[in-house]
């Protein structure tokens, strides 16, 4: 057991780093879905925007200035995009999931194509900022410092999001909207504002995840689809509208991805989607899904 642990130590760390990134990406998708019943298939495109913003401002040069600028610009992009998506999906409320899925899918296609027109289809690398772009020794293993930092950032963000959602009065409002939005609106809260706020916040996190994931995954076409599917798997496994579920789902999928790819490379993708299918069949509302709300 300890031997296996030692052998797979790097994979487990990788899994934690992937899990951190997935949490940042998926928590917004989960909240928007759980709260407003909007399935945003454009979430991956927001990540893609972040990844290319990261590439644009760092451009192969390791610098803190560029990296922080990229984070700020991506956050702004994400906020605005989230507001736009929130307004755009407003007329579709009550028209079923298919229309929302089509709209956000259309937005995702347009964003991905525009990015491919601007940046071309080549794979672009994003360099980690100075001090983090080298490898360090962890228990006798060489490991990229940036990924350790990513685990730290993910942990901090998870705590912050958890505190906001579970402990603050704003979080109480959001949780109440997840549970029963009619009741929330009947006590005089404008649902649309709550939705726009959560949409903007979740989209900002997705765009930030794009910048943060840059040094690991780079920026390339098709990345939006990959991360969207991963995020969907995470929120389905974790349960919709639950921060804790998104965290646990991210960590589980991070490990499945990393350990699966290291040990059973041919079956890694099957394990991922097999896990999704099993959870959907056995517990359709996810492992930690809220029991309340419309089915």
């Amino acid at each position, binding site marked *: 057991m300890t031997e296996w642990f030692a052998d797979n130590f790097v994979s487990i760390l990788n899994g934690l780093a992937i899990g951190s990134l997935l949490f940042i990406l998926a928590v917004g998708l989960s909240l928007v879905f759980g709260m407003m019943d909007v399935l945003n298939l454009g979430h991956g495109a927001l990540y893609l925007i972040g990844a290319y913003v990261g590439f644009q401002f760092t451009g192969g040069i390791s610098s803190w200035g560029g990296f922080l600028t990229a984070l700020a610009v991506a956050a702004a992009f994400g906020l605005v995009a989230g507001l736009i998506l929130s307004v755009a999906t407003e007329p579709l409320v009550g028209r*079923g*999931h298919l229309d929302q899925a089509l709209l956000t*899918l259309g*937005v995702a296609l347009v964003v991905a194509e525009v990015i491919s027109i601007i940046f071309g289809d080549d794979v672009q690398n994003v360099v980690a900022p100075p001090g983090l772009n080298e490898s360090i020794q962890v228990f006798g293993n060489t490991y990229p410092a940036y990924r350790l930092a990513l685990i730290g950032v993910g942990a901090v963000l998870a705590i912050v999001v958890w505190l906001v959602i579970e402990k603050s009065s704003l979080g109480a409002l959001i949780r109440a909207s997840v549970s029963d939005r009619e009741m929330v609106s009947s006590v005089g809260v404008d649902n649309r504002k709550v939705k726009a706020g959560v949409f903007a916040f979740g989209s900002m996190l997705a765009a930030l995840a794009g910048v943060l994931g840059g040094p690991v995954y780079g920026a390339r076409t098709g990345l939006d689809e990959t991360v969207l599917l991963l995020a*969907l798997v995470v929120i389905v496994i974790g349960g919709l509208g639950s921060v804790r579920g998104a965290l646990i789902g991210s960590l589980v999928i991070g490990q499945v991805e990393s350990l699966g790819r290291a040990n059973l490379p041919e079956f890694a993708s*099957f394990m991922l989607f097999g896990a999704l299918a099993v959870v959907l069949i056995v517990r359709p509302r996810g492992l930690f899904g809220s029991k309340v709300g419309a089915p």
Partner: protein
Amino acid sequence: MSAEAETPTVDEPIVPSPGSTGPSGSPGRRLPLGRLIAALLLVVLAAVPLFVAQFPTSMLARMLIFALLAVSLDLLVGITGLPSLGHAAYFGVGAYTAGLVAKHWTAAAPIPLVAAVVVAAFAAAATGWLAVRSHGVFFLMLTLAIGELIQQLSESWSDVTGGDNGLYGIPAVEVAGEPLVLVGYVYWYVLIFAVLGFAVIWAVSRSPFGAALRGIRDNEARMRSLGYSPFRYKLAGFVIAGAVAGLGGGLLAVQQQLVTPADLGFTTSALALLAVAVGGAGSLWGPAIGAALVVLIRDVYGPDLDGHGTLVLGVVFIVAVYSLRHGIAGLATTQFRRGPGRQTEKADG
């Protein structure tokens, strides 16, 4: 290939437009007119290779194939109320099966197609048995996962499928021992089986079975209390849709002589769903026109846009959601639904 006539690429979307004047009459009069238009369209489609150059003919064959996928998806989305984001999986299963049978066993006329239909039906039965247990958006995600799984299979099982390069070198289909090489003959072959596939879906939707599927779409609890088993009906609908999609895939293998993982990927599924939405879910003929439009933008105009036809399709997605509530079919048929309260919320169980 050299002679690319630009004039009569698509006569398909133009032909049904006279129908838009018809439905204002009494509903009883619509059927003969509809049949007349269908017969006329069939004659026009059958005559195409006699008057049209090779490139538009092969594009029209692609449209027919993609239309078959869209119409079979409409049986799920429009008739049964199951929005699938993985329907291209069965299309791809059919395409790979037909390709493999033709390559390794025999390319004699209907055998690869029959194999494609059978294997796609089995794949749909095995996965649908799981998928139709879920409702609404969970069905959407489960079919997405299944589609993704089958695409992964096509990419990683490279000994059989050729992996990322795709399955190439599929021999031309043989009719009575003679390989069909000419574009026009291949087109006719595609046309015959596509019409057969449309007829199957049309007959299913008109049958009492189709009526039961509509009943389940509109009020599943009520159908259950009437003694129907929604699970069995949905599964049967899923298998029929999968089998017809497999037929479309088998035709794709004939027409392209190449099958790649992209043919069964997420984008193909999404575009099929777009075709259904643009055409008008539940009308069957609308999605066929939607499919022709998608192929027109992606394959005919796409190369002129540096391969960025998808950008236009994305815009079409967005416009369709806002302005075409019931698709092209909804424009043609004014009294689409009676009464002010439309069933926007599908019975989620």
